[in-house]
């Protein structure tokens, strides 16, 4: 019963809405008054006539003005055909609209669309509305709205934004936003400035600026087009001549340009000879030649020549004809992006910018190289201990790195807080790999001291076993080792130079390791004993040092550091069972290039290898594989000249 009543009420309501139009509307509201004042201009908006209406709306200071203009822009303002009242409306279906009062956005009801006429501003008018709206947004009380507006403008700048921007700069209270506004104003002036002088002044403002937006604004100004003429005109927009056949313009492109400007006859497209011959096949001959003999270009060309003689095909331009045509014309570039004075100013500023961009790119590359070097250093430092100090070659070193990374992953499974889990993972990874290292030293390496080649093979056996074991336990897909949130993002120095915090962390970690190594080796009893055992095991033994114990601890220490390095590398790269193998050759290279037995050598080696790789990548950015290839080749050559590495052990021991 109750439902029924509601239904009836609704039907009644809808009837009333349809039949009693717009009665609830407040015709006296200031916004409505204002719109009525410009009623005809609004209803029949054109670019020429609408500006006063827009200005009036903008200047009115009415709170509803912005909404009305937005709706207007979105073609949602309708006008009653009889009363002339403006409403805001949404289409419900083909025939029905829901109307709102423009003054306070209150719903009036539904109406038949026949009674109203939709205001349809054309695109030009919409642009003017948008420009006017920008001013509303730029003066919005909410700073975020203003920033969004600035974003929108810089994404898609228009001439109309310029005056709006200029008007609001003076009143902007937030200094950051004011700076942005000024910069944007300059950028827009470059593009839409009223005269050349103004634009040139704006261009000069960006001398040496590294912003991508500055280059984006300047680059279109210096756009050129290649043109051809009998004589190179001497107008200011013409740049120097171009020779066809140079890198800038191939001969075929030059000829195509002549053809496009109807200065030369078109070339026969490739395949035309073949197509013409096929078109003219008559039985098994073409132009009197047996089809079967046309298996060489020479035969085909001669048959085609016959076709041309017979008028069955268009003659192809000969090489001589192309040459003559190209010789007859001069090719040159013309500025098409801006008037020549502006273009030249932009060109000069751009050149300056490019120089400093190159400089900053070098700096960025150096940062990249440093961070890659720290990764190599981290991967190699454990090796510098086991290989460099003890002379034990450990092919399973990479797998210790992997074990460290998986330890980090497992810790994260149990400790969801990333900061805490990393702090836990580092000592745990050290312990796990320390234990693994000690176990391996006790079980395998101890029996193979002084047999380096066999150590290499035995540790390789351990390496493949560990790798497969990891695959069996964790599967083949990469496991995530997530960095704490405070390591997300990167430190941005300018538009070109930036470095992610994780890389900075790895760099710092590398420095910490270096310090740790130096302290352990030079300041502790363990370090003293390690050095003693390394230099003369028998003498050390006779002085009460147990070489067995020292070897075990040293190996454990080196392996433990590999484990920590694994956590760091796992944060930066993916954790897979093969991640160790990816670093092992580079790690050995780092140690060998640096000079065995010297931690500074390892540091230098890592720097060299990292810089080399980044440098080669920069020369050939598309291809990191090639970079690695060439880097390895370089290292092989490097070892020719410094077989003992950068920092070579000197003295009698080295000569033996």
């Amino acid at each position, binding site marked *: 019963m109750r439902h029924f009543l509601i239904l009836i009420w609704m039907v009644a309501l809808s009837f009333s809405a349809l039949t009693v139009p717009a009665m609830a509307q407040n015709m006296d509201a200031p916004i409505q008054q204002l719109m009525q004042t410009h009623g005809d201009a609004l209803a029949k908006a054109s670019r020429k006539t609408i500006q006063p209406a827009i200005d009036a709306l903008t200047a009115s200071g009415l709170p509803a003005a912005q909404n009305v203009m937005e709706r207007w822009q979105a073609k949602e303002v309708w006008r009653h055909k009889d009363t002339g009242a403006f409403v805001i409306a949404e289409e419900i279906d083909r025939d029905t609209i829901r109307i709102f009062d423009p003054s306070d956005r209150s719903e009036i009801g539904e109406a038949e669309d026949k009674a109203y006429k939709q205001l349809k501003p054309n695109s030009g008018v919409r642009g003017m509305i948008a420009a006017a709206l920008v001013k509303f947004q730029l003066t919005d009380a909410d700073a975020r709205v203003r920033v969004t507006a600035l974003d929108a403008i810089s994404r898609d700048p228009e001439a109309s934004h310029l005056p709006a921007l200029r008007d609001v700069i003076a009143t902007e209270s937030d200094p950051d936003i004011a700076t942005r506004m000024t910069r944007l104003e300059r950028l827009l002036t470059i593009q839409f400035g009223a005269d050349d002088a103004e634009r040139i002044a704006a261009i000069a403002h960006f001398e040496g600026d590294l912003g991508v937006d500055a280059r984006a604004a300047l680059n279109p100004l210096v756009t050129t087009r290649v043109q051809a003429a009998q004589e190179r005109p001497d107008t200011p927009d013409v740049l120097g001549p171009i020779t066809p056949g140079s890198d800038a313009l191939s001969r075929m492109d030059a000829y195509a340009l002549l053809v496009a400007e109807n200065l030369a006859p078109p070339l026969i497209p490739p395949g035309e000879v073949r197509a013409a011959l096929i078109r003219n096949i008559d039985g098994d001959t073409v132009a009197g030649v047996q089809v079967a003999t046309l298996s060489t270009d020479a035969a085909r060309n001669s048959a085609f020549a016959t076709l041309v003689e017979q008028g069955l095909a268009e003659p192809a331009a000969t090489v001589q004809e192309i040459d003559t045509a190209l010789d007859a014309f001069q090719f040159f570039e013309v500025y098409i992006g801006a008037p020549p004075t502006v273009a030249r100013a932009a060109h000069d500023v751009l050149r300056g910018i490019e120089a400093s961009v190159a400089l900053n790119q070098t700096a960025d590359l150096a940062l990249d190289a440093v961070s890659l070097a720290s990764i190599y250093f981290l991967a190699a430092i454990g090796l510098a201990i086991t290989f460099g100090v003890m002379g034990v070659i450990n092919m399973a070193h990479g797998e210790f790195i992997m074990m460290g990374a998986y330890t980090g992953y497992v810790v994260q499974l149990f400790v969801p807080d990333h900061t805490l889990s990393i702090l836990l993972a580092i000592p745990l990874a050290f312990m796990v790999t320390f234990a693994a290292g000690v176990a391996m030293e006790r079980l395998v390496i101890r029996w193979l001291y*002084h047999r380096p080649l*066999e150590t*290499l093979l035995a540790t*390789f056996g351990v390496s493949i076993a560990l790798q497969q074991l990891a695959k069996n336990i964790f599967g083949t897909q990469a496991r995530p080792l997530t960095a704490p949130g405070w390591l997300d993002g990167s430190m941005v120095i300018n538009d070109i130079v930036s470095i992610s915090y994780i890389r900075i962390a790895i760099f710092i970690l590398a420095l910490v390791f270096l310090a740790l190594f130096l302290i352990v080796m030079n300041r502790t009893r363990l370090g003293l004993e390690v050095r003693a055992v390394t230099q003369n095991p028998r003498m050390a033994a006779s002085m009460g040092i147990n070489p067995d114990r020292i070897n075990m601890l040293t190996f454990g220490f080196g392996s433990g550091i590999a484990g920590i390095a694994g956590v760091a590398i796992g944060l930066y790269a993916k954790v897979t069972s093969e991640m160790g193998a990816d670093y092992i050759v580079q790690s050995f290279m780092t140690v060998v290039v640096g000079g065995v037995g010297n931690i500074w050598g390892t540091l230098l080696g890592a720097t060299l290898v990292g810089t080399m790789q980044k440098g080669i990548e920069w020369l050939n950015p598309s*291809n990191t594989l090639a970079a690695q290839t060439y880097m390895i080749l370089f290292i092989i050559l490097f070892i*020719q000249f410094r077989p003992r590495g950068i920092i070579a052990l000197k003295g009698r021991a080295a000569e033996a």
Partner: protein
Amino acid sequence: MTDTTSLFPKYAKSRPVITRHPSVLIFIACLALFTLGVTILSEGFGIGVISTSFVKTLGKTLCLCLVALAMDLVWGYCGILSLGHMAFFGIGGYAIGMWLMYARTEIIVVQSLAAAPLPPTPQEISDGIATQIFGVVGASEFPPIWALAHSLPLQLAAVVVVPGLLALIFGWLAFRSRVTGVYLSILTQAMTLALSLYLFQNDSGLRGNNGLSGLQNLPGLDAVPQSVVSIWFLWASALALGLGYLLCAWVVSGKFGSVIRAIRDDEARVRFLGYSVEAYKLTVFTLTAVIAAVAGALYYPQAGIINPAEIAPIASIYLAVWVAIGGRGRLYGAVIGAAFVSLVSTWFTGGQAPDVNLGFYTISWVDWWTVLLGLSFVAVTLFAPKGIGGLMDLVPAGTPDRHGAALGPDDSALREKEADK
């Protein structure tokens, strides 16, 4: 001085090489019997007990034995633990693969162009082949290194020349700067890594990580069934292995063998005897690189496909594993090691080995074989440095002539020498 002729030593009794090294004769006989046996049991020529795919596996194993022989010569005899010989093996495979792929694609392209209204020009055929071969890496032109691919004799020459030259240049650089021991191993590993990374690129001209495929189809011999082709390759592989074995035995039997074993044990001393150690190492390194390449050229047509992963450093390390397990410093040891490990590997990883159910966990050999291999390798290195071939020493020698024992290294002596490095 006494009259020297009366002191003519008993060791110098004039005996042919074969009888002084009976193992060579035994080996050749075993190889011949094996080949004959497989032929009789094959589907192509015999009673069909052995499947064609298994014949291919056996043929491939013979090639692996050949490359293991090369590895034994360079490592077991000359002491250079090269981790690059599988790279030479792979280059051999690529060299022959280029011709196989080119020639077969040429036939297909010519057939498809035959339907065109005009007979194709050489350029059209070449473009067609290039599009077929390099379409997969988005290219349609022949890279310069394919310039010889149309010619079988030239590519066969490339099988020998390219790895030979590479080994010569690399070896010259490495030996000249007196890089030895583990450093040399690492350097050869780096070379291998560089090569495989290079081949992984799409613009290397060898189809990047797609590699070369369809190599099992011999151009122009589509009518011959694979069962027959597989036997042909088995014969070729057996012949190559036999000849390679004779060559290696000849090389190591005389004074050259003496010198390279001396280099292995104490290269500085050999220098003071007036031998140019670098030249000998270079000779052995290059010779073995060529043998490895020939083995590869026979292997990949049986495998059917070659890609850069085959060249990765791990493959060369596995090669060292085979030789070590078989017993280095004796030629038959290398062959036994390669045959045993690769066949057992095939058996385990092929899923034929029964899984072991421990109640709480089922050991699936496909997953655990590598673990077992790695650990057994450690065990062999630790407990049986002579490898499987060392078992032969347990067989009492027929005569008290101890000269035959020179086939194996004297372990205690070797260790002392290595300790000095």
